[in-house]
């Protein structure tokens, strides 16, 4: 457990993806079965046991420490698990009387392994939990206690995606992470067969799962210069829907029962969040499509869809108010056949037949856009409403181009699929505050808060409307960094206030995808996907945009949603 804790500890501070991978792969290399398997399960969220409540942890520490010292410490540290992990007093337990009579009686017992913790938690009754936790807390060191408490309270939050953990495992054996994705639903902790294969000691595990995830195919962003080399006749175009990419998989298990699973594009199982969609997926097959909220036959914007995301409990009301819908654009499998090695045009034909057979109002086809030249498609992209998207145009975020002969290949194969997003919204905003970045950027002021003008009682004032930390080139980053250092008016820890007066300051051209009303922001608006598009050294801050401009954009959005 201490070694696993050490890994979590390191990961929690490491900002770089590749470095995280190295740390995890290093751990898998160093640690033996079955511990590393349970670690993989913990990192991928594949462990299941009943979580301990914070109240229980509080009771444990209260029984051991002075309440005043605990209160002062908690106040200082600010995190319950961490406070308890740090101040847990080294054991004065009386093992004579707790009935656990074994050889380690008078010696310090060895700390529990991760395997011991995980397997014990699975079967432990609720009443036995406090005593067991106490014993473990006595046996572990500070970092070990911290990791244990994070694990048992279900609050790991260390910024690792399941995908990253699987990629790290793949690197152990120099394998393709897609292979692991493919077999993953058929595997279970502690993944002995997986590690045996990765270390070349056994054959590749076979996935017997009736509803496996298939690694998704992704598109490249198209540039204006790309079109010259592409022939419009080779492509099929569709709208790019502003929802969430999902894979909806149905299949029969050994007993012949229909199983249905929904996966995110990274392979996370999100089935439980959308129970209302499952009955519609009543034929064996694997659909690649977009999850959308559709009300009265009209696709709602991403802002509306967001209400259904990351919910712990999916209530009847939520399902009624935000009816979920699947817009299908590809068919990866049907019955027992794998369709991925068919050209897209053929898959599309199979998909059309499949959706017709499903005959369900919650699932429809993503329509294709008729076009005979790039000019025609350019016109359609500029005006989706007039080119077939009709009233759903507001949920269109551009156009997808797929080669008629494209096989379904995992990852981002070159030249097969292209995305051609609609032009982003652009505003000119004024840099107000800058914060140092992390990792490679820790010596640069690379996180920027920007604002636009608004009228207040005593005149004009800038109000912050967003934060951006990418979009600029390395050269531009150097320029902004220099500007920030030379024009700081105040410092608050890692944050610098940068001069922002009508005639002094830096105007940033900010691009963003959408706007939502937000009571949490002082300005009342929140931007989606903001980034720095250009530096406007030529523009005095006085001429930057005003909050009214954003509010007008918001009204257009609101009218469309109503």
């Amino acid at each position: 457990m201490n070694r696993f804790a050490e890994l979590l500890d390191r990961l929690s501070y490491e900002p770089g993806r590749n470095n995280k991978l190295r740390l995890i792969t290093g751990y898998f290399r160093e640690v033996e079965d079955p511990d590393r398997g349970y670690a993989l399960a913990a990192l991928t969220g594949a462990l299941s046991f009943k979580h301990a409540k914070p109240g229980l942890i509080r009771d444990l520490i209260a029984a051991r420490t002075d309440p005043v010292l605990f209160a002062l410490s908690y106040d200082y540290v600010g995190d319950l698990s961490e406070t308890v992990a740090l101040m847990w007093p080294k054991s004065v337990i009386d093992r004579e009387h707790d009935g656990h009579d074994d050889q380690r009686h008078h010696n310090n017992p060895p700390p529990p392994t991760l395997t011991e913790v995980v397997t014990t938690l699975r079967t432990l009754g609720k009443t036995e939990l406090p005593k067991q936790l106490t014993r473990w807390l006595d046996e572990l060191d500070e970092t070990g206690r911290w990791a244990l408490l994070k694990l048992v309270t279900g609050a790991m939050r260390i910024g690792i995606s399941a995908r990253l953990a699987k990629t790290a495992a793949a690197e152990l054996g120099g394998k393709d992470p897609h292979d692991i994705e493919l077999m993953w639903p058929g595997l279970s902790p502690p993944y002995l067969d997986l590690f045996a294969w990765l270390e070349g000691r056994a054959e590749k595990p076979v996935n017997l799962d009736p509803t496996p995830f298939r690694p998704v195919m992704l598109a490249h962003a198209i540039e204006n210069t790309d079109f010259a080399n592409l022939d419009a006749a080779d492509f099929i175009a569709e709208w790019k829907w502003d929802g969430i990419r999902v894979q909806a998989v149905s299949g029969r298990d050994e007993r012949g029962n229909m199983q249905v699973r929904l996966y995110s594009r990274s392979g996370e199982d999100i089935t439980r969040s959308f129970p209302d969609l499952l009955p519609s997926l009543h034929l064996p097959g694997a659909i690649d499509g977009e999850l959308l909220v559709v009300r009265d036959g009209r696709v709602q914007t991403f802002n509306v869809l967001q209400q259904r995301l990351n919910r712990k409990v999916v209530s009847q009301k939520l399902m009624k108010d935000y009816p979920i819908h699947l817009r299908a654009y590809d068919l990866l499998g049907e019955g027992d056949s794998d369709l991925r090695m068919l050209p897209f045009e053929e898959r599309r034909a199979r998909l059309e037949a499949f959706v017709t057979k499903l005959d369900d109002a919650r699932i429809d086809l993503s329509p294709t856009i008729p076009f005979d030249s790039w000019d025609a498609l350019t016109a359609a992209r500029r005006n989706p409403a007039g080119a077939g998207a009709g009233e759903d145009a507001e949920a269109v975020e551009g156009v997808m181009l797929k080669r008629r002969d494209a096989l379904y290949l995992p990852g981002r194969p070159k030249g097969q699929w292209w995305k051609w997003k609609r032009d982003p919204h652009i505003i000119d905003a004024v840099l107000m505050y800058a914060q140092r970045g992390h990792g490679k950027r820790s010596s640069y002021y690379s996180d920027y808060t920007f604002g636009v003008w608004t009228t207040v009682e005593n005149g004009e004032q800038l109000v912050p409307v967003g934060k951006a930390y990418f979009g600029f080139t390395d050269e531009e980053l150097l320029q902004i960094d220099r500007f920030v250092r030379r024009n700081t008016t105040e410092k608050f820890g890692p944050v610098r206030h940068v001069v922002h007066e009508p005639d002094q300051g830096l105007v940033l051209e900010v691009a963003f995808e959408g706007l939502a009303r937000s009571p949490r922001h002082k300005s009342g608006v929140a931007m989606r996907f903001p980034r720095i598009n250009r530096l406007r050294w030529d523009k005095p801050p006085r001429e930057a945009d005003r909050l009214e401009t954003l509010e007008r954009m918001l009204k257009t959005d609101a009218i469309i949603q109503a």
Partner: protein
Amino acid sequence: MRPQDILMPVSAGLCCKPGGFHIDPVRPVERAVITHGHSDHARSGHGAVLATRETLDMMRLRYGDHFAGTTQAIAYGEQVRLGDVRIKFHPAGHVLGSAQIAVSCKDTCIVASGDYKDAPDPTCAPFEVVPCDVFITEATFGLPVFRHGNAEDEIRKLLASVALFPERAHLVGAYSLGKAQRVIALLREAGYDAPIYLHGAMEKITGYYESRGVALGELRLIKGMKKADLAGTITLAPPSATSDIWTRRFPDPVTAFASGWMRVRARARQRGVELPLVISDHADWDGLTATIDATGAGEVWVTHGQEDALVHWCTAKGLAARPLDLVGYGEEDEGDATAAGEDAEA
């Protein structure tokens, strides 16, 4: 005689009226008795200074030859009489030359411990418990969440990281006086014998440690080094430099920070530290409480740091305890305030 008639806090610091001196005064006084060389304790401009030879040397390094009117060096275990009191210096284990000062008047003994730690440190004399009636303790880490553990384990963590990321540079933030030399010495004890690189601000003081017989192995200045040549190396730098433009000369640096504050995750994250190393030159909670016990003092005065928790602990044990409201200390180590010269590009 009541203890507060022997030593009392005034705005200049801890004042001993019957002895006619101040301990670690924060503004110029006629006669100063100084515990150790950190800049918040050892300031310039006093009429006369009494301190260990090392402390005096460090003051001279920092402030120049005329940092005080007159100076007098005193060794550990040596006793001198000042006015109506006797004072004696004992090792504090904090940094090279650091001392606790025992002040005795008639039959009352007060020990002003300055900053101290009871953990082993290859670069200075070990802390000595001095039995006394009143013990004046620091409380930098005066909360039970601060347990520093073994510094050796933290060094192992650093070396494991260097092994895992051989193409990156490891940049260890450490206070220039004491912490840096201790980290280097610990690295050597752990068997690391490659050259260790130094930020220019550490050169003088590190050279001084070596001149006092602290072996630190091969040290090199970072100045003039090529970026590619710093892959796989360890560099020590003042904490403020590790998030500065200065770091851009290193290949994809791993930012480490050796400090007792690194025990608390939010503190480490706030500073953008990727590899926190819990290595402190101050006593941790267990060290503070064990030391108070060991001195046998019936009364405890608590200063600079988390006074409340330690006063509460003493009171619960039946000891008379109170916070000493001294200002101006505790900023030397592990905080952001470093002497201006240390921030300079070097």
